[in-house]
């Protein structure tokens, strides 16, 4: 469960993204680590190896694990994210239609019907991994990643929705784009989304983009 994966790194395997987030919170409360970084089914802890012996770090982490890992409390609020699907904003929607045999309208209906939980933030500032997709969205990433994916892009890969808070290279299948700003470096709190938040997507017309 606990693996040394570098001179100053430990990795902890967990069962779910919610557990990874909850354990990360517990670890941060229990000790002063330079970094505690949840993944989808792992938590990485970086410790200050100059002062802290790995043997003691292992004991401290084990003590936290012994308390048991709760699931992350989902936040009460629900954030609605408007999305223009398809066309120039979602160039891979057609690919998804051929892969699933569903019409664009049916895919959009499926994507907007559910309430999802943000599993994890990571990759680039504010990039959100959102779980809970219908099984039919289980498609791999693009073979050729794009050099530039626009900010606000909504991607699908490996059974998750990925929200690009900023422009970056990327390999997710882009089905739409939100006009909502998801990261603002100048704001007091630059991040709109956090792990554990509830979100729902709402289809809007291209004409509403930028309004």
């Amino acid at each position, binding site marked *: 469960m606990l693996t040394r994966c570098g001179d100053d790194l430990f990795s902890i395997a967990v069962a779910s993204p919610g557990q990874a987030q909850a354990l990360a919170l517990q670890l941060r409360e229990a000790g002063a680590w*330079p970094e505690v970084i949840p993944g989808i089914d792992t938590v990485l802890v970086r410790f200050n190896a100059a002062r802290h012996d790995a043997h003691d770090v292992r004991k401290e982490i084990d003590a936290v694990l012994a308390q048991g890992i709760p699931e992350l409390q989902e936040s009460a609020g629900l954030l609605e994210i408007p999305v223009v699907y398809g066309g120039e904003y979602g160039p891979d929607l057609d690919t998804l239609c051929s892969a699933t045999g569903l019409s664009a309208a049916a895919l959009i209906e499926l994507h907007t019907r559910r309430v999802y939980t943000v599993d994890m933030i990571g990759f680039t500032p504010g990039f959100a991994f959102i779980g809970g997709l219908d099984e039919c969205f289980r498609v791999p990433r693009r073979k050729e990643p794009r050099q530039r994916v626009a900010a606000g892009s909504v991607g699908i890969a490996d059974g998750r929705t990925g929200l690009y808070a900023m422009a970056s290279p990327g390999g997710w299948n882009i089905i739409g784009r939100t006009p909502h700003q998801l990261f603002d470096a100048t704001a007091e709190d630059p991040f709109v989304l956090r792990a554990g938040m509830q979100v729902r997507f709402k289809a809007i017309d291209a004409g509403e983009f930028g309004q």
Partner: protein
Amino acid sequence: MSITVIKPGLQTTVQAGPRIGWRHMGVPANGAADPLSLALANKLVGNAWNAAALEATLVGPTLRFDSDCAIAMAGARAAITLNGSEQAQHETLFAKAGDELVVATAQAGARIYIALAGGLVADEILESTSTNLQAGFGGHEGRALQVGDSLEVACCEVELLQTPDEFRLPMSSSWGLRACMAGESDLLDETSLQTLFDTNWIIDRRADRMGLRLDGPALTVSSDGRMPSAAVMPGTIQCPEDGVPYLLSVDAGTVGGYPRIAQVARLDRHVLGQLRPGDHVRLLLREPDEAVGELRAKLAYWREWLPDIEATIL
């Protein structure tokens, strides 16, 4: 007090210390790719080790001083002139108003650090003034310097200092990086694992602050090459589907879905900033506690000249 950019060089950015504790929000370390050289330059002008300075990549900038200012350079080996007269790295230089500093192409190493007494005045975002080029924040307008940019310097009086010979970080074209096994090292077959640590890897031309491709024999991982996204760090070596190892640096994404096959040990991570295309790199396998022992010995050595060394190579 300010300086004006006459020529920006290949990619010159404002960099200070790293962003620490934001990786779970997707924010990488940023900061000097070679923080030890940043600290060495800042030391010579009386600054804190992590004061905002200029990081020049391969080809240095030409700068004009609008008033008197003490400066110092460390990092990659490069010729420097102040108003046409040759100057040395590793010592305090005193520029006068109107002087022009020309930093030439690096001869060895990839990044030259130019520290200015008092430090550069830069945008502080998420607890650091370092530039995040990908997201476009921090430093000077979140971007690399351009012709005509004017940068504000806090400026203060300082004494002449020289870095003692034994603390001048040697530059090379052939490097050894101590590294440990990482989370998915066991996905490499035995031959590939041996190849990883026996190969004289060559730094590919696609090398930047995000990461460096290591050219050499292709490696084989015993999975489809993908895994659930997990945290990565500067110094993490990933093995993507094409089998070409990718060494992550200070601006890399904070999570990745490729197997993590090795991890450069903390004591050698500052070297990542000095690797340039064509350089040779060998990975030297260490048991984690062995690498910690070497880290502590290195810190003890450097502490004499740089009291903040522990924070510098965090």
